């Protein structure tokens, strides 16, 4: 996917002015969060489950070499062909080669964020393969030629009117404002694709090390269809998705749907292991697994390791007031919201995405809901510090910070400045708020007043009152 993360400010301003987007966000904002809160409250063991999941993931990351090796061994034992891609270019090359060698002309794909990282669809299309997104939301935005704006609800920014227009134009369907009718149109169209596609492409929510299984969680059933009906199954999965054992899966299945959509469980969980067995009436004859590094091993090595615990539930997006204000596209890459603000700079390099860690008020709502307890606000702070150290901050900001620290070094100097500001402030504002300030404060006073400094700061008042002389 094309990277545009450093344009966050511009993207966000555009998003705030986009009436359709704002309406779509308005219709949906908060609903996920409310459902999630209710589902979590209904499971008394939620905190213990969360703690356990976080520890399991921590153990996996501490020994990813061991667990991944075990996973690959078990998967290969059961007929899965495992491929490893170091970066996006390699992933595209491998995917195209698989499609070519398997003789694929049509592939149906279920949702996979990892595949977006490597521009998977473009790679297959370049190899002459038609790729049809089968998740309804992904299908809609594929028709619209857009990128997903939310991890689990990729078309959250589209209204039904826009969707009907797309279905009219691309599928020849009559206009309707009935959502069930729209869903029916997509079902009919995509069913035909499922029945004729040579390859089903999926992501993977979990990789089970002790059995070599790939676990897919969906509500629509597309992940299930794509892994049962076509002759070939290709799963594209990040290396960090390993969990140690089948016995650990319930822990994660309790967290993912609750955190994502407030469901006790998603409609469909498919645990697929290897190819169809002798005597199986259906199931793929060939199973490929494309494991993506794409920056993950580098993250594993550093102080942000825990970000790899992420199970892509999107609870942090749903809880984030910044995300809710501007939607996902503003973040300029695959991942948005708090997870995007941390993960994107780590995967694509901080210089390419230094605007994102600043896109947070550090309110901490994301850390409250993260089902694997990733310290997202701490990581945002850490990345901001890295930006300074890597010379990515503007000279203006650095100068301002140096000046400010210089003043704060001496209480006397601060007091003198406060008194001058107080006199000037009171003179010009007559005690009212300030309605216009120069850059970099001008943004504040565009729609808000700024308080005038007090005529007599507290320190001075205290000295007078308590008779302190120095």
């Amino acid at each position, binding site marked *: 996917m094309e990277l545009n993360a450093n344009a966050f*400010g511009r993207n*966000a*301003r555009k998003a*705030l002015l986009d009436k359709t987007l704002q309406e779509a966000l308005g219709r949906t904002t908060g609903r996920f969060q409310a459902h999630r809160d209710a589902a979590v409250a209904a499971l008394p063991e939620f905190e213990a489950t969360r703690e356990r999941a976080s520890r399991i993931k921590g153990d996996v990351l501490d020994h990813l070499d061991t667990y991944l090796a075990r996973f690959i061994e078990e998967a290969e034992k059961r007929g899965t062909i495992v491929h490893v891609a170091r970066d996006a270019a390699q992933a595209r090359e491998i995917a195209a080669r698989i499609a070519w060698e398997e003789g694929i002309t049509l592939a149906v794909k279920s949702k996979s964020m990892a595949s977006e990282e490597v521009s998977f669809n473009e790679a297959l299309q370049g190899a002459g393969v038609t790729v049809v997104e089968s998740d309804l939301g992904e299908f809609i935005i594929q028709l619209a030629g857009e990128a997903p704006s939310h991890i689990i609800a990729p078309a959250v920014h589209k209204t039904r009117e826009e969707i009907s227009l797309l279905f009219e134009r691309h599928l020849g369907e009559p206009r309707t404002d009935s959502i069930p009718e729209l869903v029916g149109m997509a079902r009919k169209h995509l069913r035909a694709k499922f029945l004729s596609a040579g390859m089903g492409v999926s992501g993977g929510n979990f990789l089970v090390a002790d059995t070599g299984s790939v676990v897919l969680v969906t509500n629509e059933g597309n992940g299930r269809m794509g892994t049962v009906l076509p002759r070939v199954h290709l799963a594209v999965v990040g290396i960090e998705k390993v969990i140690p054992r089948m016995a650990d899966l319930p822990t994660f299945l309790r967290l993912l749907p609750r955190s994502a959509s407030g469901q006790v469980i998603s409609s469909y969980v498919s645990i697929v292991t290897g190819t169809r067995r002798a005597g199986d009436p259906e199931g793929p004859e060939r199973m490929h697994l494309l494991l993506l590094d794409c920056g993950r091993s580098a993250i594993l090595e550093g102080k942000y390791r825990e970000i790899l615990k992420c199970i892509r539930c999107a609870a942090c997006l749903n809880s984030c*007031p*910044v995300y809710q*204000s*501007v939607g996902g596209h503003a973040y300029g890459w695959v991942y948005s919201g708090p997870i995007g603000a941390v993960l994107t700079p780590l995967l694509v390099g901080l210089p390419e995405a230094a605007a994102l*860690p*600043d*896109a*947070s*008020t*550090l*309110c*901490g*709502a994301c*850390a*409250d809901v993260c089902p694997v307890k990733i310290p997202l606000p701490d990581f945002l*702070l850490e*990345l*901001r*510090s890295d*930006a*300074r150290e890597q010379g990515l*901050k503007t000279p203006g*900001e*650095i100068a301002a*910070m*140096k000046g*400010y*620290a210089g*003043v*704060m*070094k*001496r*209480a006397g100097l*601060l007091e003198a400045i*406060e008194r001058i500001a107080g006199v000037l402030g009171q003179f010009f504002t007559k005690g009212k*708020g300030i309605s216009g300030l120069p850059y970099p*404060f001008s*943004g*504040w006073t*565009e*729609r*808000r*007043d*700024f*308080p*005038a*400094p*007090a*005529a007599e*700061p*507290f*320190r001075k*008042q*205290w000295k007078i009152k*308590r008779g302190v002389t*120095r």
Partner: protein
Amino acid sequence: MPYTTGMDPKGPIPVSLFFTCLADAFSPGVCTATVEVLERFGATVRVPLSQTCCGQPAFNSGNRKEARAMARKFLLSFPDDGFIVTPSGSCAAMVKHGYPVLFRDEPRMLARARAIGERIFELSQFLVDVLGVTDPKSDFSGKVTYHDSCHLRRGLGVIEAPRKLLRAVPGIEFVEMEESDRCCGFGGVFSLKYPQISCKMTERKVERILATGASYVTSGDLGCLLNIGGLISRIGYPVKTIHLAEILAGKTAGKEDAG
């Protein structure tokens, strides 16, 4: 849950006031009110005059070198014993959680930061959890709603203390707003870097405040109140921002710098 101090409960309660640079410059009445309330409940308040800023704006914007310089000054400005109380959840959280990050490679400063972090409290937290105050003895009156500052609520875990105090004031009709724990959009440097997003968030907050019909919105952080108040004052909405300390101090407090 009472905080175990190891001090004689009947003896004097030594408190150093961490008045915060923001209140010092923009709302000295908040500091005066804090002193008044602390003294009302038996604290002996001293004000270390060499204090300036805890360094949070620099820390939060990733400028750690400058933040560290300010943090160092802060740690040296406060005495080695007694409580440190501040009318700001955000500044207390900075000292408690930010300083250990800043000094993670300096064992001596880290130890000092941790020790001070143990002794620092936000005002409502101190009154309720340490002093066990149930009646703030305030004569304030009016319909009041409360905004949870993010750093007070999530940083320090203080949720109930301010509410308990507000509910205990006889003249106050306390009303919860919806989404009281949702960020007001301030975020320090965020409000300057992304002012439009910040404002969008503030507008939503103000909508929720207005929906309560309260005459006052209060909070444990001046930053939030300056932000919310900035929008209220620009549009001229019929609601006033007032710091929790001023409400607790009562009618007579902080009048001279109201506005």
